[in-house]
């Protein structure tokens, strides 16, 4: 080589006298998918084409001019993007496990009947359930919100603070109610323990630690089951209560351990803001109203029907179990509506498909809950644990309408419509209370009206594609 080439005399490897046609062919994928001539210009440059090289080969003044020619020449036939990962994938065992986790504490109630004999027991239990449902709904909302933001450690932080605050609230509320209802110490301890378990288990469930909830439940559930199977021998009563107490302690302990480990050293002041509390309020309100609707029949039942006995709560068991099914159906509804969004071009068509899916979801929930009710009845009626009042057709139908209403409310909550379910539920509860005072028994009518109202509202809201933004 006699004289070194200089940076300034660049030419392509050989003057490639090719037609633009050939270049279009080479860049056909880019041209077909391009949204603007500049996108083709970028691709040409990326491939090493400079203005200089293009001038030599095609006589185009620059990359941009040639890109425009190519954009015009090749019609748009973009490739579809590859299928996206399914955000709502779930396994079938998870909802079943959740059903089990929600339902199994029922055994503990039955075994603890001896503890809850004193005055004011049912009041304390009902208040404890109401408070802890309200708090755990609010807590779960905050937790999921932070999990959704994708910032590691943030969900744990907010859960830890909310858990501490929730435990304090449960303790305070139960203490006050126990004094007012002149309940004994065992009842107070049971109420606090139940509330604490609910909060601890909620934290663990939000964090996806089902196994730890199972671990926490096992001593109480196994102890209680053994106690019941042995025919409630009185000498084992205290031992059983000891195993029962292990469950809330474990649940709270595991929840604290899991959150504290992830949190690390942080400033406590910034953990739970006023905005957070305000955001959690509708969810907490929903927990309270849902609890009110479910417990109202128990609270107003006459002593002859087993009121005052905690075993009346067994009547709620089918609905408790059905919450696992509700979670699964929620995911089913999400996946189906996402699919419908990708396959429809018209908003009206989408709206009617979404409404059909909503109806299908509610119907599936109803069928599953009826099956669960039948199963529970088969077991409970045989063992005579439940007063026949709770197994009348009317009572079962009442619970089914409330269950469906709660399912629709959960769907609405999941699509960020949280206020209307609370208002509707509160109104229904108010009507039920008013009717009860006037000695009218029309819980089933109220339940049906509530269901119809919520379903109509859901059909309106969930028909809007904007709600389905993922």
């Amino acid at each position: 080589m006699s004289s070194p080439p200089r940076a300034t005399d660049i030419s392509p490897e050989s003057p490639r006298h090719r037609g633009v046609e050939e270049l279009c062919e080479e860049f056909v994928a880019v041209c077909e998918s391009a949204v603007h001539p500049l996108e083709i210009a970028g691709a040409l440059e990326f491939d090493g084409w400079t203005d200089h090289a293009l001038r030599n080969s095609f006589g185009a003044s620059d990359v941009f001019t040639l890109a425009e020619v190519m954009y015009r020449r090749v019609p748009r036939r973009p490739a579809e993007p590859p299928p996206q990962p399914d955000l709502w994938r779930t396994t079938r065992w998870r909802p079943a496990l959740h059903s089990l986790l929600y339902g199994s504490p029922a055994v503990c109630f039955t075994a603890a009947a001896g503890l809850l004999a004193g005055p004011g027991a049912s009041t304390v239990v009902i208040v404890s359930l109401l408070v802890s449902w309200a708090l755990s709904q609010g807590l779960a909302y905050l937790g999921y919100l932070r999990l959704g933001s994708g910032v590691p450690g943030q969900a744990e932080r907010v859960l830890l603070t909310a858990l501490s605050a929730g435990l304090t609230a449960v303790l305070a509320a139960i203490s006050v109610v126990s004094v007012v209802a002149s309940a004994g110490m065992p009842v107070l301890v049971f109420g606090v323990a139940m509330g604490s378990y609910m909060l601890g288990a909620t934290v663990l469930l939000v964090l996806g630690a089902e196994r730890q909830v199972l671990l926490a439940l096992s001593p109480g559930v196994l102890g209680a089951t053994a106690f019941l199977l042995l025919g409630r021998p009185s000498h084992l009563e205290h031992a059983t209560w000891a195993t029962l107490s292990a469950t809330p302690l474990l649940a709270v302990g595991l929840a604290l351990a899991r959150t504290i480990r992830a949190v690390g050293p942080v400033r406590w002041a910034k953990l739970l803001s006023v905005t957070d509390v305000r955001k959690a309020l509708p969810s907490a309100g929903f927990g309270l109203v849902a609890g009110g609707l479910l417990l109202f029949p128990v609270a107003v039942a006459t002593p002859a029907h087993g009121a005052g006995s905690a075993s009346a709560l067994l009547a709620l068991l089918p609905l408790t179990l059905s919450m696992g099914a509700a979670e699964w159906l929620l995911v089913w509804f999400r996946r189906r509506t996402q699919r419908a969004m990708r396959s429809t071009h018209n908003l009206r068509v989408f709206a009617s498909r979404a409404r059909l899916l909503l109806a299908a979801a509610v119907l599936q929930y109803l069928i599953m809950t009826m099956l669960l009710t039948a199963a529970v009845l088969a077991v409970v009626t045989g063992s005579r644990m439940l007063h026949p009042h709770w197994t009348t057709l009317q009572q079962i139908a009442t619970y089914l309408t409330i269950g469906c209403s709660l399912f629709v409310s959960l769907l609405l909550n999941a699509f960020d419509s949280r206020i209307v379910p609370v208002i509707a539920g509160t109104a229904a509860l108010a009507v039920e209370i008013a009717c009860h005072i006037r000695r009218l028994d029309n819980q089933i009518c109220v339940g049906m009206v509530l269901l119809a109202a919520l379903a109509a509202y859901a059909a309106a809201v969930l028909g809007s594609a904007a709600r389905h933004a993922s």
Partner: protein
Amino acid sequence: MITEGTYPHQFGGVSVWCDQIIRGMPGYDFHLVALVGTGSEPVVWDLPGNCSLTTIPLWGIPPASPRKGQRGGHRAGQRRVFPSRLVHRLIQALLDPPLLDPPLLDQAKLDPSTHAQSRFADVLFELFSYAQQANLSSVLSSTRAVRLLSEAWQDRWPHAHQLMPTVHDAVTALQLIEHCLRPLSHAPVQADVTHVSTNGLGALPALAAKWQHDTPMVVSEHGIYLREQYLHSPSLPYRWAVKELYLGFLRQLCALAYHEAETIAPCNVYNRRWEERLGADPARIRTVYNGVDPANFPMADREPDKPTISWVGRIDPIKDLETLLSAFAIVHEEMPQARLRLFGSPPKGREPYLERCKEMVTELGIDDAVAFEGHTSKVREAYQAGSIVALSSVSEGFPYSLIEAMTCGRTCVATDVGGVTEAIGDTGLVVPPRNPARFADACLTLLGDEELRRKYAAAARARALEFFTIDSAISKFDEIYGFLAARHPLPSVEAAQ
């Protein structure tokens, strides 16, 4: 200064540049506005004392509505804007003129005076005014907005068409625009000058400051933001209509930023082509080359014993190591004692590329002559490890690795992309990209001629010290800031360059 996904949360060329400017100008107070993902990214740079930081997350939980009386975005006498009308106008500005229709293509040329651009500017200003007082995010994610976009699309494709967007596309497109526009909901920064480190979404806070406080703006550019977005486009998980709307938004935003900026300060002359194409006024473009601190890169004293090619950078497909490796295989055949040393590591997610490169080395049978040295903190020694320094990239802005190597007195062989020819000038060899044969030729020429190498090396260092020092970059920005803060137009010097 405004950054997007770079300083102070990420490492890389743009971050180095930001850090150099802020540290190099202790006489100025910098307020850094960093557009980030979720807002939880850790700050990985030590911020200098003259710099404060605001982060604007584009993702995660949307910004809350401003409280009444908190912001002053409303200009006196401005008419009330109805949100759905605003969304309608935004959609019209983004979809029109329809590029699909070839006869209309000519109208779509990006002339700053076109109707389309001024309409986009008006809409963006209205969106800003609205976002300062109310919740823009909720407007853009409303049922109404989805319906407006759907209808607009249906007007465009009244019949079944392959491009026909789905309901999902409408929702996705609006979500993207909502995230992009989040900076408009934040209170504009008050400063004497806003400096946008890269065009694109970073221009939004600068435009906001301009509208609110009449702050002059400088737009810098390393790679071309828009070009990089287009190159990235095939990997976006969206359908065509969504991409068209999203990239159309970014294109119009970039064009508007060029139009509104008092000064455009690209890091190389090559960038001007794209800037002018997007309607930038050539008189306002003032190239400011990246610079290095010569104290960190002293003249290398001696060459390695064996003829060695050194490469320094991120192991990334954009660096086109395939060409370098194929070229080296040719070099090795002619000059069996030649060695190739690659310094650098792959960024997260690019590890398979490194593996591919290693496999290629084995296939080419040059295992004994090629060494992957991994990441090095002693970059200077990496340049000195080579008799020459190579850069085979398919896209570059104004690569630090070249000007650092030149400052060390190393001759470079590089591909003709971005600002490479401007950096090397006639102190090294530049060859077309993706051309191993030419690349090998250039390497062999230099490796085989010590005298030529020495001549180039001295020239390279002289050139770097003259044009590409940090001091020279800083004094140029000092001058620009001074003129803009005093509201004087910058004297035109570009013609002389």
